[in-house]
């Protein structure tokens, strides 16, 4: 990677970051860098800006970690590299992690980046979906694989799913703009952003505001790593926490850094800035303000388990392991 020119904002965020790693005894001699990999769940974008900020500022390097950020993609599931040990930590979601555990993967969730689930229903203002009650009679464009998500939303709100017409579409805003569907099941932070960047306005209804509680963008690690590589995990998560706090402090700088770090990724700066602004409210809450980024409450675990049961998955609170964050926050 070519050196990235340090921007004024980058310097501010680097200076303003709050967590002191030295006190936690995490500093190791620079010569003994431990190579670890973080498997991202999608293509490089501000969705992972906190990691880029940590890497760019050398916060992991200072803690003795040499972190490789492995890009995801449409055909790059997160679980195999984490199970195989190619990646120390992967970015998944509670539903995928639960499914993998049901299949025998020894995973635990060690941090929750998206406190609020990013799934949303996007529509256009002249035919809006603002509440679940607006859904019956509408044509919804979505991936068939996401049927359990819609099912859970309907059951949480007493909506008859049979009255909604599901149209299998590619993950793109095009069918909505072309009038082939009335609304889309998508993430708050991607297709609605694309629509706004085209100069149109998109209505979004966040599923999390209607009972759909499900931890997303969760950090997963294997039992073996949690038992035997605690120091590496704590150092990696410390960088993430510090990086995301810096991202929250200046989302535009985070977007600029992302675009500068990945000049070949086809990223549009304005799109990235809007996406960064939109994801912050999903990642931070009163809880994280008091406990720190990545933390979760027992109530939200219970609610996530309830949502998962509506999707046909049985999960116990064992799936979550707070010990890494506890070590990190002292």
């Amino acid at each position: 990677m070519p050196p990235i020119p340090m921007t004024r904002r980058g310097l501010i965020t680097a200076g303003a970051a709050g967590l002191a790693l030295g006190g936690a005894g995490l500093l190791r001699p620079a010569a003994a860098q431990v190579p670890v990999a973080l498997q991202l769940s999608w293509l490089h974008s501000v969705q992972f800006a906190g990691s880029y900020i940590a890497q760019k500022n050398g916060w992991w390097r200072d803690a003795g970690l040499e972190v490789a950020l492995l890009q995801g993609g449409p055909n790059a599931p997160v679980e195999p590299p984490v199970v195989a040990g190619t990646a120390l930590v992967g970015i998944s979601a509670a539903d995928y992690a639960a499914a993998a555990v049901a299949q025998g993967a020894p995973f635990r969730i060690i941090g929750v980046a998206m406190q609020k689930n990013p799934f949303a229903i996007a529509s256009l203002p002249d035919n809006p979906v603002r509440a679940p009650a607006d859904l019956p009679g509408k044509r919804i464009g979505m991936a068939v694989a996401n049927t359990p998500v819609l099912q859970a939303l309907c059951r949480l709100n007493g909506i008859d799913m049979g009255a909604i017409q599901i149209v299998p579409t590619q993950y793109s805003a095009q069918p909505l703009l072309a009038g082939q569907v009335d609304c889309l099941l998508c993430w708050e932070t991607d297709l609605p952003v694309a629509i706004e960047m085209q100069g149109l306005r998109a209505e979004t209804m966040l599923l999390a505001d209607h009972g759909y509680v499900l931890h997303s963008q969760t950090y997963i690690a294997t039992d073996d790593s949690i038992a035997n590589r605690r120091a590496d995990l704590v150092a990696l998560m410390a960088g993430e926490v510090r990086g995301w706090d810096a991202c929250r402090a200046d989302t535009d700088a985070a977007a600029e850094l992302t675009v500068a770090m990945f000049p070949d990724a086809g990223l549009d700066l304005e799109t990235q800035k809007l996406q960064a602004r939109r994801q912050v409210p999903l990642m931070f809450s009163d809880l994280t303000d008091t406990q720190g980024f990545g933390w979760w409450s027992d109530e939200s675990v219970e609610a996530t388990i309830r949502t998962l049961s509506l999707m046909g998955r049985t999960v116990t609170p064992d799936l979550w392991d707070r010990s890494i964050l506890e070590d990190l926050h002292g």
Partner: protein
Amino acid sequence: MTAASRWAGLAALLALWQGLALAGDGWLLAGPVQVAEWLWSNPGPTGRATAATLGNAAWGFLLGNGAAIGLAGIAALWPRALTLVAGLALVVFCLPLIATGPILRVLMGPGDGPQIVLAALAVYYTTLIPLLAGLRAMPQAWLDLVQSYGRGRWAELVHVRARAALPYLLAGLQISAPAAILGAMVGEFTGAERGLGVLTIRFTRDLDVPALWAAATLAAGLSMAVYAGIGWLGRRALSDPPPVILAAPRPVRGSPARKAAQAALLIGVVLVLWWAAVAGLNPFFARRPPDVAAALLWAPDAAATRATLGAAVAQTAGLALPGYAAGLALGAGLAVLLTLRPGLAAVTVPLAVALRSIPIVTTAPLVVLLLGRGATGTLTLVALMVFFPAFVACQQGLAQAPGPILDLFRSHASGPLRQMLHVRIPAMLPALFASARMTVPAAILAATVIEWLATGQGLGNLMALSASVSDYDMLWLTMVAATLLSALLYWAVAWAEGRVLAVMATEQVRP
């Protein structure tokens, strides 16, 4: 075809494209003017993406075609190995990208490995099958001559078979050009850092229509350039008119018992290789044959698994088979039409190469708009994927019509249509059947890729769904199902081929 007509054809194509783009609502298709503007103002990222994809595709092209040539050589030297070589080649080609991609990524780590391997896998089979036909496409007398000098199979291969196979090889390489580029792009979906495939995914989500079509145009343009380059080489290398192929008829070989033994050997070798391939990998995702058998046969939820798998197989087969038949008919039909009316090639050939090399994620919304979300759309996309290899192979087959016999027809003032019926089509049969065999797995693969990326049905959707919820038993079962489906259809085509060629092209069925 004159240079003038070629340019006129290209201009007509560009005009058609621009017209379609203007007729749409702007969210689907960008015209050549918008594409050119976008490329002009974004040279850096596109240039690097193109270089990355082209480099990987070139390595895949070299490795895949090298492997095909090596395997064909082995089969020519040791004819007894043919069944095993062809069978293994089929099984490896059937492995779905969606399943192999993540495994390759875990094995090879970050970098270009998976893209190169997937590009190589996308090309080797469509070169191998025509090449095997080409290695037999010579008069018996030539081989008799070699034998009369007391020389063996090596001399036969070097002096006679290799030369006869050259036109078939060039057809295989032409088919490979767009397949390698598409394979490299789909390989980038496994987490590559840069390339046209990465940009395609990004621009689809960002709804950046001019950028999306700029990436598609680059992929198509590169494919056309390589296709045309190999065609030019072929015309320079092959100056002799094709010979008259005379060979004594023979009965179709092989007793049922021997065929069953060959099939059993093949299945045994495949199972051993499967076991060896996953031996060092974590069993969470790298399932062994007994795990998969248990999931299908005696696990508590085996009945539900069978029902899900069966429904998906039926759905995929229901689309792949008609699409396959339509694509094959379209390919052979267009090859015949272009031989009779060569002027049409200027418009149709670039279009055919483009349709084969632009990823389905880009074209699917257009097809959905034109044909709807039902079976017609999927069927058309499958037909488009099958059509191109069939077309190139048949076109090359039609050119194998023996020169002296065509001269005889001309001297009797027989028209092009009569020449076509009595000389060219019979000469095309070996190539037609080779293309029918090699496009069987291509059709199944195309159907699963379309289901995965566009329609969300059938085996392709089941593969994606299984991978996303870590149901690796089901993922491996879908791989086995797709492979068995391809193998059954392949053997059905090969059976028909044996019967027809035993009469029409006896050189293809001799030992």
